[in-house]
């Protein structure tokens, strides 16, 4: 056998090579394999598509909106039905364009999702991984704290927190984040328990690695994929909780175009002007569904037990 490559490699062959020549190629190859597993799932792609659209909408809300999301045309355009000239999805009781409000509302939705993910996931991961790896009283203390949070219904706890902190979108986010980390801690702990006695962790211990290093660099990466899947699946719930708090008047305050608050204000006209409450409802439904589809796809693609490939 000669070492000279017979033909120039295609990009695909380069990615799928079982003899990567650099760290970069190995990593890209792995990402590509994950992508191939993920993209084999049509519904997951659809979910991803909807979310990409959401992000696009949020970024370009200012350009895309035909009208202002906060100030309406009280005199000439109150409660117009969908399809009215200039108001594709109709208007609400203050004459505000619903489409523009939805577009700007997507920013709030993304804000909530990202902040909750950024606060809750790392908290849960750290608490769970440390508890699982350390064991003993550390585990007992951390897990009892987790249990206390789990003992309350999520929405009730969030309500209490918002009531204490005062209504507002930031406090709503904080309340949701504080109530949603415990399940992540449980998952991270369970994953940690399965890997902590693995030989490859023992091997790192035998190199003299500190417990902190083992948890951060060797245990946590093993928890990540199941955590990502779980967070994605939970996002639908987070959106609904945020909408619920908004609906109860404890989340975003008027005139912010938060989707839940929009439903709340449209509730009064649900029988005669159905579109006021329905349009934000559909938006919430679509985004929640997209996250669920994405989560399902990620579960297959990121399964750490893929081992072989």
């Amino acid at each position, binding site marked *: 056998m000669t070492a000279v490559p017979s033909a120039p490699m295609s990009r695909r062959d380069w990615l799928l090579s*079982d*003899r*990567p*020549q*650099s*760290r970069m*190629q*190995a990593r890209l190859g*792995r990402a590509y394999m994950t992508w191939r597993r993920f993209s084999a799932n049509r519904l997951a792609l659809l979910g991803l598509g909807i979310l990409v659209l959401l992000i696009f909408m949020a970024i370009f809300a200012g350009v895309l909106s035909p009208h202002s999301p906060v100030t309406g045309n009280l005199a000439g355009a109150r409660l117009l039905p969908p399809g009215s000239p200039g108001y594709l999805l109709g208007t609400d009781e203050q004459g505000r364009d619903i489409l523009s409000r939805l577009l700007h509302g997507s920013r709030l939705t993304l804000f909530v999702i990202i902040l909750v993910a950024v606060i809750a996931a790392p908290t849960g991961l750290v608490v769970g991984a440390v508890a699982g790896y350390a064991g003993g009283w550390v585990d007992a203390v951390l897990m009892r704290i987790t249990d206390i949070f789990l003992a309350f219904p999520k929405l009730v706890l969030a309500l209490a927190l918002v009531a204490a902190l005062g209504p507002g979108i930031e406090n709503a986010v904080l309340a949701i984040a504080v109530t949603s980390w415990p399940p992540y801690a449980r998952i991270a702990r369970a994953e940690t328990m399965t890997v902590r006695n*693995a*030989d*490859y962790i*023992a*091997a*790192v*211990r*035998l*190199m*003299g*690695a500190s417990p902190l*290093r083992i948890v951060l*660099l*060797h245990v946590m*990466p*093993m928890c990540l994929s199941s955590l990502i899947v779980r967070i994605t699946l939970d996002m639908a719930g987070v959106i609904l909780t945020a909408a619920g708090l908004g609906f109860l008047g404890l989340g975003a305050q008027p005139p912010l175009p938060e989707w839940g608050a929009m439903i709340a204000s449209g509730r009064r006209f649900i029988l005669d002007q159905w579109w006021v409450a329905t349009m934000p409802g559909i938006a919430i439904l679509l985004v929640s569904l997209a996250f669920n589809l994405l989560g399902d796809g990620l579960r297959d693609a990121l399964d*750490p037990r893929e*081992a*072989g*490939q």
Partner: protein
Amino acid sequence: MSIAVSARDVTVIYEDFKALDSVSIAVGKGQSYGLVGESGSGKSTLLRAIAGLAPVFSGTLEVNGRTLEPRRRDKAFYRDVQMVFQDPYGSLHPRQTIDRLLQEPLAIHGISDAEARIAWALDEVGLGTGFRFRYSHQLSGGQRQRVAIARALIVEPSILLLDEPTSALDASVQAEVLNLLEQIRRDRGLTFLMVSHDLGVVTHMCDQLAVMRSGRVVEHLSASDLVEGRITADYTRNLMVASKGFVRTPA
């Protein structure tokens, strides 16, 4: 001959179970010492106790003349003593490339010239740099075990603990790995402490051995004692017979 590893009356207790019951061995520097026994004999437990992975209840462990604390080991210890595990499928992190695996010990001990060392370690175990950026699931069992050996060697230890390093491998691959281990020992003057259930492997690799059963040492003997049948314990004799294969008793 000075002593590299010694265990005196070491007892290990897991919950209520006595995994090791006052076991004593002494391994000379540069020697290759074998621990033979069946499952539950405590042979792996002794290895793990030396490595600091098993709770030592009583007794003394010494490595290169230094007495070890029951649980804690310092970094210097791990530059002296390294271990190769039984299951090549479980001992390599599934999400790390070989490169990353081999970098870890160097990073922990603050050893420079990582690039050169990794290339050299892979070369020494006969893998070459083509394997460097692969993930462990892209390797065969034998190749994985070579990576595990490279990882142990990269910090240049003087003592290697081998926990059934070839029992999960095919016979032909086992021969290759055993040859590699012997070669490395010769080249670097390493001390081996090797655990195996296979008398053939142990007598091939080791000059001195201890036969263990339910947490105790049944017999200390040299490989030549075993070959020439100078055996005192019945249990060792049984093991000898069993390792020869099935014998049909005429009905």
